[in-house]
């Protein structure tokens, strides 16, 4: 561990400054470059026939009439791709026992979820492609469907993959200490609750989209891809098309939101690419909103029975839960669908001292849309279980929810240490974050206000969460298990003749400001004006190799790589300058785009002069000096499996007990993501995350009929948070830099989404408690809140 060794507050040091994003103006002028903005000569449009049922056998599939429709270039079925696309299986070796069946991009023989692609029409326009889809004749024999995850393991449940003998995909138990003994202890209070978490999906405003070109002359596949992980997709296309990886180029330009939705292998996208190869002409596929709801990965569908025992002084004695989650008929490729459950096991209780911890998760197959990793994977569930039980326990022993946290949160001076589940923890600040939160929200006054309003029949509640977030993952997350997912990232920093600097990085931009923070870091390290730094991301041909965007790693890993590369370039610059200026490199520095005398001295030569000397007049340099003025560095986290962040959040809600409507009145978040590179970007990441979390807590749910028909297929049915119902969100920071890097930055992208649901749920229960009601099911819809009140006799 190198520890912080840079000063971040010198001229041109942009780290920590609220620098506006360079990308913003372009997007504000309507000059974004999203996939569907692109056209290619001879491009055809794909539309899909999808399974109308959750489970069925394809009796016949007749595409002859569709082929005759106007504008149709080709119709391709699942069977047509056998031998063209190698099937894929979503398992990883470090998730011992995880099993899944081979998947093809489009169904072959059997359909296993409503929405599964069955056949694809390629036509001159999307409208014509859809016209032809309507002319495909699909005859299905309905098969019994296993849709309810809680019944999917019943002996009489239909088994989706008969070769497995049951619908169990994976199970794991964590058992630390002796829970059974602890639960028999003296003077303890046990609370037991049943939690339910509804299925969510990402609802990226830009739907999944791809435009694929194939050049048979060079066996070259070029994929414009609205996604997060270009190198991962390069591997997948190459492997499953039997191509050389270098012949596959994946480009992500502007991406209209991702949130973990756009980092998976979707059959329709693979099929579109296969069609481009088969037809030798460009194919565009843009999911419509129906398709997004039906086929983007879902997440969060968990049912948990949990209990917590606390001693008289409020100390946690034991935490124990059983979790079941349904993931659809396959484990998603290549990240697998067991990670979410694994995160729940790993993260529950992680902020607290939990001496006895036992948790089991069962991951089951079912005939619904596939579930996989979505923003804050597993976190909202883990935080709601522990902090939900903790606040119930506090109420049971008559202790304030802040006080019980003070007594159980790990002490800020107690690191490094491990969590109950064995996670390595360091550089966290739970206690400080909680105190800052309490101060920021003026807790005592809020409680007074709550009591006063209650006299008037207004039911407000205040709820908290103390949380961790997994960020900056090491190879222990995926790579160890055999996934083609890089945990390291690279940056190349180049000084050009004009004095401008170019950064090329393998982390990617979906609006979170990756490009901006790379500029800030590189400009700061090199000592140049930020406007002179240009950034390229999202192109497997022109950037270093890396993982892209996932698990809140862009700043912490991609940023560190850029920092290291900029440092290396600066060393080269100073070496050259020392020769030209006939001095020693350590007597020089760079500031404002010029080589200067170290210690704030006079400008000696501009970087442009230096670069022009190197590039045009190498004759002026000694013959043994071969400067490159370009440096590449890669970085991975080596000392920890993940770099955890922590946060403390609170929600104030008002429950309309007549209608069951819940309004979030106030929300506060204190976040410790280590070094804050750009507070403006971090604050908006936190706020956007909180709103997504509020969505999960109150509004969003993929609803199904019993036979597996998705009912929420429009934005009028699946309720995302809109502006009018959302509160202003107060954000504050604590900066405890991680010792794993020079930069000291951890991730910040998922905290709000991971923490807010627990805080909102606790706040609702705080409001309901005097009425004798409680609710542990998300989203907490009016109908469910009314039902909770009804059970309490109101």
């Amino acid at each position, binding site marked *: 561990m190198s520890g912080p060794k840079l000063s971040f507050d010198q001229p041109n040091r942009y780290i920590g400054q609220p620098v*506006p*994003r360079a*990308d*913003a*103006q372009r*997007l*504000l*002028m*309507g*000059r*974004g470059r*999203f996939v*569907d*903005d692109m*056209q290619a000569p001879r491009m055809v449009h794909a539309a899909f026939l999808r399974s109308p049922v959750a489970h069925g056998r394809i009796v016949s599939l007749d595409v002859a009439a569709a082929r005759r429709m*106007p504008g149709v270039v080709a119709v391709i079925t699942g069977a047509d791709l056998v031998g063209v696309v190698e099937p894929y299986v979503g398992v990883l070796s470090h998730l011992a026992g995880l099993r899944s069946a081979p998947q093809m991009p489009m169904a072959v023989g059997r359909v296993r979820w409503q929405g599964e692609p069955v056949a694809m029409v390629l036509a001159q326009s999307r*409208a014509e492609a859809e016209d032809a889809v309507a002319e495909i004749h699909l005859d299905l024999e309905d098969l019994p469907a296993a849709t309810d995850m809680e019944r999917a393991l019943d002996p009489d449940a239909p088994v989706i993959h008969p070769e497995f003998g049951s619908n169990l995909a994976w199970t794991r138990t964590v058992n630390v200490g002796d829970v059974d003994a602890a639960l028999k202890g003296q003077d303890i209070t046990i609370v037991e609750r049943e939690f339910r978490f509804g299925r969510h999906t*990402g*609802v*990226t*405003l*830009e*739907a999944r989209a791809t435009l694929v070109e194939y050049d048979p002359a060079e066996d070259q596949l070029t994929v414009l891809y609205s996604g997060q992980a270009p190198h991962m997709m390069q591997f997948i296309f190459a492997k499953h098309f039997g191509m050389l990886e270098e012949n596959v180029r994946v480009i992500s330009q*502007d*991406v*209209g*939101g991702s*949130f973990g939705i756009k980092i998976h292998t979707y059959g329709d996208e693979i099929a579109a690419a296969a069609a481009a190869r088969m037809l030798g002409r460009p194919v565009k596929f*843009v999911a*419509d*909103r129906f398709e997004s709801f039906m086929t983007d990965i879902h997440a969060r569908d968990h049912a948990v029975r949990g209990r917590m025992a606390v001693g008289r002084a409020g100390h946690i004695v034991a935490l124990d839960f059983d979790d079941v989650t349904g993931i659809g008929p396959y484990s998603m490729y290549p990240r697998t669908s067991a990670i979410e459950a694994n995160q729940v096991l790993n993260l529950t209780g992680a902020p607290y001292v939990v001496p006895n911890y036992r948790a089991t998760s069962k991951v089951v197959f079912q005939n619904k849309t596939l579930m996989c990793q979505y923003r804050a994977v597993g976190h909202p569930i883990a935080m709601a279980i522990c902090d939900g039980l903790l606040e119930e326990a506090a109420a049971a022993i008559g202790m304030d929810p802040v006080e019980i946290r003070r007594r159980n949160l790990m002490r800020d001076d107690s690191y490094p240490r491990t969590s109950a589940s064995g996670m390595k923890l360091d550089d966290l600040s739970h206690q400080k974050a909680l105190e800052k939160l309490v101060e920021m929200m003026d807790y005592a006054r809020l409680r007074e206000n709550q009591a006063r309003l209650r006299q008037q029949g207004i039911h407000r509640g205040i709820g908290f969460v103390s949380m961790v977030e997994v960020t900056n993952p090491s190879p222990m997350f995926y790579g160890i298990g055999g996934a083609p997912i890089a945990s390291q990232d690279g940056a190349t920093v180049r000084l050009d003749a004009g004095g401008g600097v170019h950064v090329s990085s393998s982390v990617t931009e*979906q*609006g*979170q*400001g990756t490009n901006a923070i790379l500029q800030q870091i590189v400009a700061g390290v090199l000592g140049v004006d930020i406007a002179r730094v240009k950034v390229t991301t999202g192109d497997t041909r022109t950037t270093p190799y890396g993982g892209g965007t996932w698990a809140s790693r862009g700043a912490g890993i991609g940023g560190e790589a850029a920092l290291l590369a900029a440092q290396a370039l600066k060393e080269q610059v100073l070496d050259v300058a020392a020769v030209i200026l006939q001095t020693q490199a350590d007597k020089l520095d760079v500031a404002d785009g010029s080589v200067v005398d170290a210690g704030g001295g006079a400008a000696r030569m501009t970087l442009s002069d230096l670069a022009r000397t190197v590039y045009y007049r190498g004759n002026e340099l000694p013959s043994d000096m071969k400067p490159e003025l370009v440096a590449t560095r890669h970085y991975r986290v080596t000392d920890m499996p993940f770099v955890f962040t922590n946060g403390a959040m609170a929600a104030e809600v008002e429950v309309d007990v007549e209608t069951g409507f819940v309004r979030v009145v106030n929300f506060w978040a204190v976040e410790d993501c280590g070094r804050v590179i750009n507070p*403006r*970007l971090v*604050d*908006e990441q936190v*706020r*956007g*995350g*909180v*709103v*997504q979390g509020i969505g999960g807590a109150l509004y969003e749910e993929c609803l199904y009929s019993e036979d597996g028909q998705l009912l929420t297929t*429009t*934005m*009028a049915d699946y309720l*995302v948070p*809109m*502006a*009018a119902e*959302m509160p*202003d*969100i107060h954000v504050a920071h604590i900066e405890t830099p991680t010792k794993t890097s020079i930069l000291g930055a951890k991730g910040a992208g998922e905290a*709000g989404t991971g923490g807010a649901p627990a805080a909102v749920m606790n706040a609702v229960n705080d409001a309901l408690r005097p009425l004798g009601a409680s609710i542990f099911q998300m989203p907490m819809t009016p109908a469910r809140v009314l039902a909770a009140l009804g059970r309490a006799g109101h």
Partner: protein
Amino acid sequence: MPETRDITLTVNGETVTATVPVRLNLVDFLRNSLGLTGSHVGCEHGVCGACTLDVDGATTRGCLMLAVQADGCTITTVEGLPAHGMAGALRAAFTERNALQCGFCTPGMLASALEYIGAGGAADRTAIREHLSGNYCRCTGYQSIVDAVCDVIEGRARA
């Protein structure tokens, strides 16, 4: 053969004449026929607001209007917003407040915000939130967008 119609309209100050299939909606026409890809398609059922643009001085969902219905209309898309004045100030405020992340909602958000500001709307956060309630943003949490609109109304933002 699909039915087509000839239409003539003014788009961002230019007169445009085109032959369009009658089933083509306005936002697809602007994006795919005119190359004005600033207006985005998010849901095609009028809920998300990404395709919101200005038709004859009123915000309109580009997915809920046919191109053929726009015959004779005057249309302003995000590409046609002036660099100066209220639009310029709003862009500056969006940049300053980081009122956009991925930028996909931004053109529609600008159109709705400009309608509010142009109608003399007050720097009332609740009223602004209600006016923008037909424009979905998954990234920002909306607060910075409201901040930016307030900045323009209260004269803090300059083009």
